[in-house]
């Protein structure tokens, strides 16, 4: 469940969940009771309170059915979350109403007094808030518990399951809303527990829970189906028809009223089509059925009719509405999650629009619910994370990364060993390089060369390039796909805008998680917020593991700068002219007619996204320094000199393919075999965040607001984000002018593996997919 749209739309969701359900209940109850005075029911009489009981249980939208249906049809997040959120939160209302009317029925209609009704209303607050509270408490306790399970990772999935179930049981025990408890418990856990537990536990929990939930849903519906063919039915045509019609009708009316009401203060209005989908998507499910079954027949004489009608309604909504909602969505052109973007230019422009609009929104101050969110985030950062997360997550992360990288390298080494078929001897490729020079490239014409490029893989190393063998045809499509993928992995993601962005979800479905993932990783480091940049400089020289990484990140950035400088040697005079007042450039500005005055924060933000460092490449940087213009050298040199001392802290990882896993847009092949990619694991993510901002020893730097580092978290690469863990492009690569095909080829290969093993853990951004 996407958290952020949930909280953005919380007002609407609550309005719908509570008020709409209430409205539906009352209307349906009155209708049913009203019609019992007519002859439509064939003479059977339904009392008022039983009617209301039945109305209470039938008007609740069922989260299970909604979830199952809406995930299939891929509507945009906002619509999905409104319906799904409503179905989750209306549990409180429906439970309260059900119990209230049930107990009223037990008391008997004639014995009711006013205070009963008032108490019934009060009990709503108790039930819902109690459920939420219990859920949160258990979530917090679970987080706290996982703080100490470092050495017993086996327990972690169990803890999660047990606490969630405990939350449910406890709340049912005290007669508050169990569903709300478990929902909020899950939300709390998602924020904190996933940091604490190990990667394996996280994956385990995710898969186990998915499996369990599928099983349970199946069982529920199977049970319903089985009981349909039992003989406890009493079919009353009139009643069933009236129920069905009134359910549909009042849902539509209710949505129409309340969605329009919500539109008054919503940033992004719900259109008529949205409302139609919302009302059409109000599926009833197993909860209604279960509640109908447990009615007490002595007090509610018409139980069998109720059960029958419930089953009829559930079947109708699930089958008829559930099946037709897909085609309806398509034909009404409801905005859906667009999974892929058709053209490169569209993708670029899309991203550009995102960036521009976030910027403009900020300028115009109409950032929506941002301030509240920021406050929550601050509260979160200062208090909760400190108490609930384990200590020093960075160091832990580094160790984990080290281990993971060792494993990666082992595996890639094995792979290289095994696939001797794919190894291509690499002749000198310089001749072919020149034919594919980047400057005057018409893509179509050069694609013909790519097969040659593939054949002449890379000078020093043979890399198993299985794609070459697999598909000989449709090269152009493949290259397109690769380029697309390359763009996907490398374009900055804009901070999600509160207002419009939620509607047209035309980023990949994983955007939410990607942002969350980065925010998770960001939050890890954030609580050790380095106050001053100069301190960072000194601490770099001191400590071992952390320093190595931080030094590396800075040197990484500098190396990138060097690399680009080296590459753009021909344009260096321009560079130097334009770069003197600025900080190191991470991008070649060779073609820029206007010298861009990048400020430090923007620089740091870029580097945040891409600080990569490889300690071994350090040694190769030294020879590069001479060709550079002098005024650029002085900037990178201090970090490098510090950095050299820490080389021994790096663990030799070896294996070019490890690098390519980490940063798929980089070619793996480069004379990396001997080099360790250790820089990445030891690369301290927190330092990368703040080191990048502290990257400056440069007196020229305009002292911008310190908080930019805090904001820089919101920018990240797309779902393959792994900024801290990736490695720099080494200068040699630029010099060799790698093959275009290879530029993109490796990316498409590696991320396939990544897609399979998609987990949400922080540390796994780069290392998950093994």
């Amino acid at each position, binding site marked *: 469940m996407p958290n952020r749209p949930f909280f953005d739309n919380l007002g609407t969701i609550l309005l719908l969940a509570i008020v709409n359900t209430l409205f539906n209940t009352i209307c349906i109850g009155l209708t049913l009771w009203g019609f019992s005075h007519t002859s439509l029911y064939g003479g059977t009489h339904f009392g008022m309170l039983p009617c209301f009981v039945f109305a209470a249980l039938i008007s609740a939208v069922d989260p299970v059915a909604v979830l199952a249906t809406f995930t299939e049809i891929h509507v945009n997040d906002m619509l999905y979350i409104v319906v799904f959120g409503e179905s989750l939160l209306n549990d409180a209302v429906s439970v309260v109403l059900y119990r209230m009317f049930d107990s009223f029925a037990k008391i008997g209609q004639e014995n009711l007094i006013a205070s009963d009704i008032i108490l019934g209303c009060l009990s709503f607050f108790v039930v819902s808030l109690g459920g939420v509270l219990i859920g949160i408490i258990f979530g917090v306790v679970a987080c706290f518990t996982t703080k100490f399970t470092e050495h017993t990772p086996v327990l972690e999935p169990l803890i999660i399951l047990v606490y969630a179930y405990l939350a449910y049981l406890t709340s049912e025990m005290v007669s508050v809303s169990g569903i709300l408890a478990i929902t909020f418990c899950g939300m709390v856990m998602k924020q904190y527990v996933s940091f604490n537990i190990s990667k394996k536990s996280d994956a385990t929990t995710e898969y186990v829970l998915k499996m369990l939930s599928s099983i349970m849903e199946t069982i529920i519906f199977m049970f319903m189906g089985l009981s349909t063919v039992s003989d406890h039915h009493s079919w009353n045509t009139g009643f069933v028809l009236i129920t069905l019609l009134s359910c549909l009708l009042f849902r539509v009316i209710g949505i129409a009223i309340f969605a329009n009401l919500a539109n008054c203060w919503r940033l992004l209005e719900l259109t008529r089509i949205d409302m139609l989908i919302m009302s059409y998507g109000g599926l009833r499910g197993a909860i209604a059925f279960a509640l109908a079954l447990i009615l007490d027949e002595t007090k509610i004489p018409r139980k069998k009719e109720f059960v029958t009608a419930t089953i009829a309604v559930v079947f109708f909504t699930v089958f008829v509405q559930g099946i037709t909602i897909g085609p309806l969505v398509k034909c009404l052109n409801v905005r859906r999650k667009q999974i892929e973007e058709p053209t*490169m*230019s*569209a993708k670029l*422009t*899309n991203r550009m*629009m995102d*960036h*521009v*609009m976030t*910027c*403009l929104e*900020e*300028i*115009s*101050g*109409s950032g929506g619910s941002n301030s509240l969110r920021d406050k929550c985030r601050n509260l979160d950062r200062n208090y909760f994370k400190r108490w609930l997360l384990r200590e020093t997550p960075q160091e832990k992360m580094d160790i984990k990364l080290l281990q993971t990288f060792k494993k990666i390298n082992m595996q890639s080494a094995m792979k290289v060993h095994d696939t001797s078929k794919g190894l291509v001897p690499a002749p000198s490729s310089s001749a072919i390089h020149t034919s594919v*020079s*980047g*400057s005057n*490239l018409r*893509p179509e014409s050069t694609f013909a060369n790519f097969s040659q490029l593939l054949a002449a893989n890379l000078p020093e190393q043979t890399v198993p390039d299985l794609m070459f063998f697999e598909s000989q045809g449709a090269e152009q499509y493949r290259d397109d796909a690769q*380029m697309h993928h390359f*763009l996907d992995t*490398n*374009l900055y993601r804009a901070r999600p805008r509160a207002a*419009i962005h939620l*509607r*047209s979800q035309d980023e990949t479905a994983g955007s939410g998680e990607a942002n969350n993932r980065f925010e998770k990783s960001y939050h890890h480091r954030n609580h050790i917020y380095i106050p001053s940049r100069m301190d960072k400089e000194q601490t770099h020289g001191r400590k071992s593991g952390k320093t190595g990484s931080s030094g590396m990140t800075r040197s990484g950035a500098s190396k*990138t*700068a060097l690399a680009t400088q080296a*590459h753009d040697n021909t344009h260096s005079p321009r560079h130097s002219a334009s770069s003197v007042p600025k900080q190191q*450039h*991470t*991008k070649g500005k060779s*073609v*820029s*007619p206007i010298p861009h005055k*990048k400020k430090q*924060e*923007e620089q*740091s933000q*870029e*580097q945040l996204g*891409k600080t*990569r460092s490889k300690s071994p490449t350090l040694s190769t940087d030294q020879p590069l320094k001479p060709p550079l213009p002098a005024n650029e050298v002085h900037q990178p040199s201090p970090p490098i000199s510090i950095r050299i001392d820490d080389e021994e802290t790096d663990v030799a990882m070896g294996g070019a393919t490890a690098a390519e896993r980490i*940063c798929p*847009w980089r070619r793996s092949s480069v004379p990396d075999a001997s080099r360790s990619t250790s820089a990445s694991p030891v690369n301290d993510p927190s330092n990368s965040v703040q080191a990048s901002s502290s990257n400056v020893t440069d007196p020229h730097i305009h002292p*911008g607001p310190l908080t*930019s580092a*805090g*904001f820089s978290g*919101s*920018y990240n*690469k797309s779902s393959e984000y792994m900024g801290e863990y990736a490695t720099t*492009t080494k200068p040699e690569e*630029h010099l060799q*002018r*790698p093959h*275009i095909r290879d*530029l993109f080829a490796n990316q498409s290969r590696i991320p396939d593996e990544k897609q399979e093993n998609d987990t949400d853990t922080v540390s796994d951004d780069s290392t998950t997919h093994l």
Partner: protein
Amino acid sequence: MGSNASIMLQQEDLQNICQQTGFTTKQVQRLYSRFKTLDKRDCGFLTREDLLCIPEVNINPLGERLIDVIMNDYGENNKINFKQFIFLLAKFRHGKVKASTTEFNTRECKLRFLFDMYDRNHDMKIDRNELLEVLKMMVGGNIHEEQIATIADHTISELDKDGDKSITFEEFCKTLERIDADDKMSMKFLS
């Protein structure tokens, strides 16, 4: 108002602005207070530095470029006064309903703005270099020149219908047919 806008917003100016841009008075007032907040030195206009002080703009990959566009196209001499500010923002009003579309916030205007973000030399074309610049800004530093260049070329070849290796405004608009630019490039102005 001139380049030094008066600090208080005059009533007739307000009416004028509302009429031209289609904002409501409350929205204009809110934007005015935002303008004043940004204008730290209280001199009636915003400069580059003021805008760059906004953290989000600072770290946005296209923040600098956006400020360039704002300052050059909408302000003068590195200053932008409130009127220009609000005319700029008027472009991004949501023009879905016919009644709320003025000459400012047509779809074409929005796309034009985007086009201007690329086309800094105002020759009505996006050529390879301009595209390359923007691409580099959006992608970040750790990319090979060739990769970016290839992408840029590929993009141009996708869009370029007349084969002159540059993208005109019409070609640009054609790309955005599928994307609902109007929605994406609109902001909700709180009143």
